[in-house]
């Protein structure tokens, strides 16, 4: 979570405090007129192109809840497939006032403040062990968080003098990661999952948390997952303490971690 996002968070929270019953705030897609509901769609149908297939595409859009759907492009793809582009007017609307996205609750601090907080509250270095687990070899994300160099000008955890950062790299078996976490007495475990095809990341992540449970150390570590298709909500569902998506940086994770550590150790 970037500093920018947490600003919004504060905003919404204070709103909620101010008035408990929020006015509904319906929102619909916008093309060129408020509430016109305009949406663009594209998809393939596994049938050759003909007028009936085109009509099928249109009917699908009707079923999705589009008024006046128009198939603006239809093209045969060979081998019994056809491609469609549609525009339609979405009938659905959502009430923004009812949406409260789960977010890890913390304020993103800068590196110095984080170091200071760790020094003050923990009185020792925070130990962070990270890895890209199981078959996943996409280390660029975890490296962005952990390695000295960091990402987009945001230095990684290795550059934090109050953090002991151990990046185990790619395709690390969950067993190996857990063993290392125990060995290093890790405060925080960072896991990266980038490949999501057939939801393999869910299997991998569940496997890791089961292992931690089995080893009886789940409660002793702060368990964090990140990746381009990871949301905090998903992470929570999987029993993780936090989840970080695209555009996360070391300071976001570190801020969360020390915040969570303090919470646990003062509660």
């Amino acid at each position: 979570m970037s500093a920018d996002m947490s600003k919004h968070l504060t905003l919404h929270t204070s709103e909620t405090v101010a008035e408990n019953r929020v006015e509904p705030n319906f929102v619909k897609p916008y093309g060129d007129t408020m509430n016109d509901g305009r949406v663009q769609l594209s998809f393939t149908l596994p049938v050759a192109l003909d007028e009936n297939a085109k009509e099928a595409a249109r009917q699908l859009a009707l079923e999705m809840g589009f008024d006046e759907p128009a198939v603006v492009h239809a093209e045969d793809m060979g081998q019994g497939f056809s491609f469609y582009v549609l525009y339609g007017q979405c009938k659905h609307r959502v009430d923004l006032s009812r949406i409260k996205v789960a977010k890890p609750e913390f304020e993103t601090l800068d590196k110095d403040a984080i170091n200071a907080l760790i020094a003050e509250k923990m009185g020792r270095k925070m130990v962070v062990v990270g890895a890209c687990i199981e078959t996943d070899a996409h280390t660029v994300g975890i490296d962005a968080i952990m390695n000295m160099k960091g990402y987009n000008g945001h230095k990684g955890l290795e550059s934090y003098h109050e953090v002991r950062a151990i990046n185990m790299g790619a395709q690390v078996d969950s067993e190996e990661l857990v063993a290392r976490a125990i060995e290093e007495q890790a405060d925080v475990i960072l896991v990266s999952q980038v490949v999501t095809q057939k939801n393999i990341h869910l299997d991998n992540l569940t496997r890791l948390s089961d292992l931690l449970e089995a080893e009886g150390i789940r409660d002793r570590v702060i368990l964090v997952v990140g990746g381009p298709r990871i949301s905090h909500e998903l992470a929570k569902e999987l029993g993780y303490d936090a989840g970080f998506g695209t555009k996360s940086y070391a300071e976001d994770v570190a801020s969360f971690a020390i915040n969570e550590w303090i919470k646990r150790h003062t509660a």
Partner: protein
Amino acid sequence: MSQLNLDQGQIDRARESARRIAHRVFDDMSQYTTTTVERATLRLMGVDGVDDNQIPLPNRLVAHLQEQKLLAHGAASVVAGAMAEHALTAQQVAEAVAAGKLVLARPKHDKAARQSAEAIAAKMCEHIAAQRAVRSQQIDKVGEARTPWLYLIVATGNIFEDIVQARAAAEQGADIVAVIRSTGQSLLDYVPYGATTEGFGGTYATQENFRLMRAALDEVGAKIGRYIRLTNYCSGLCMPEIAAMGAMERLDMMLNDSMYGIIFRDINMKRTFIDQFFSRMVNAYAGIIINTGEDNYLTTADAFDAAHTVLASQLINEQFAYISGLKPDQMGLGHAFEINPDLENGFLWEVAHAQLVRQVFPEACLKYMPPTKHMTGNIFRGHIQDALFNVVSTLTGQNIHLLGMMTEAIHTPFIQDRFLAIQNAKYVFGTMRDLHDEVEFKAGGRIESRAQQVLAETVGILADIEKIGLPAAIGRGTFADISRTMDGGKGLDGVIAKSPDYYNPFPDLMLAGAN
């Protein structure tokens, strides 16, 4: 980009032909005025508003002058005479006439009436000059955007919705916002009045709409630190009036072509030739950049086959523009990226055409239009057609760059279409920032040969047009594959032969004072 090797002698010959073509038309048309030229004159003298039937007072007044057989003398001195006689403003004269309370006649003191008309006109010229100064100051303050300037249209039909979209576009990077006009307005022989919310495929051009949009763009421009140019359509049956409104409200650009109305709106030739002179003169004085419409030819004719007709028309438009006092940097000569994407080597020909135009008009503020005709419902493919258009534009140093929309074949732009179009252009322009400085095309190669060929064809066609005259050439379908006759089309009834004492204060003031 390195210069293509072109024969300057051919360019000069073509330009000379065009000069003679335009002057002959101008000379023939000088004996006429039109109802809309007179209405524009009245507007510039302060007549505005509508009657109870929403008929604009300039129309009521001019109709009255026609009834009284006074129009051939020019509206200005008649109205100035009535103002003096009855101690009324021009607006009050118009209201009184509309209310049936006043019947106009030739001024008692013709010379005095002319003088007072001139004084009123001079005041308006001061106002317009002040608007021009505001524009210069603002541009000086915030600096000029890098060319190609990103030009975007809004076309919701509702001026207030247009404003929302225009602000967002400016914030996203547009340098120019054009408010597209409602389908059909160009054939109305009056200009609608007030803020409007009900257009089809565009929003009515009204003075109030101009004012509202100008204010909105000034505001967002101040916020983002960039002067946003405003564009509208000075075209159709009310070309001169729209020029007048635009001059007063500080528009920055106007679609304004010497032949577009004839060809694409079947407006009478005489009417258009007369109107275009007056409207351009106003534009010239107001420091407005005109955008000519040659790009449209390529929507009805083939972009490869008809390439020379574009250049020929640009040369004619240039000469008409000179006659009206426009400077080269006010000439947004139009051309377009409209070659069939399936044509092998089409990109090479686009480069050749764009660079040819660039070299023939080195000082002009060229307007380059995106693919439209060959855009389809396949928005993904269309987005790439637009990207290649962006490439040619930066490579050949175009000035006004109308952004292609991937949804061109579908609807007037949605906000996201514009957003993505800006991203497209910004990406291409940035990643190719200095490419124009690096690229050279092979001497004697396909690109250069193609440019030479189009130039040679242009020389030829202009020589032909010169022989038969522009009206006859239009009659033969020379441009856009569309043919029109001298006495056909709409609006001929608004063409009035001037009487020998015809008077209009603006030409003298404006032609002298253009920047």
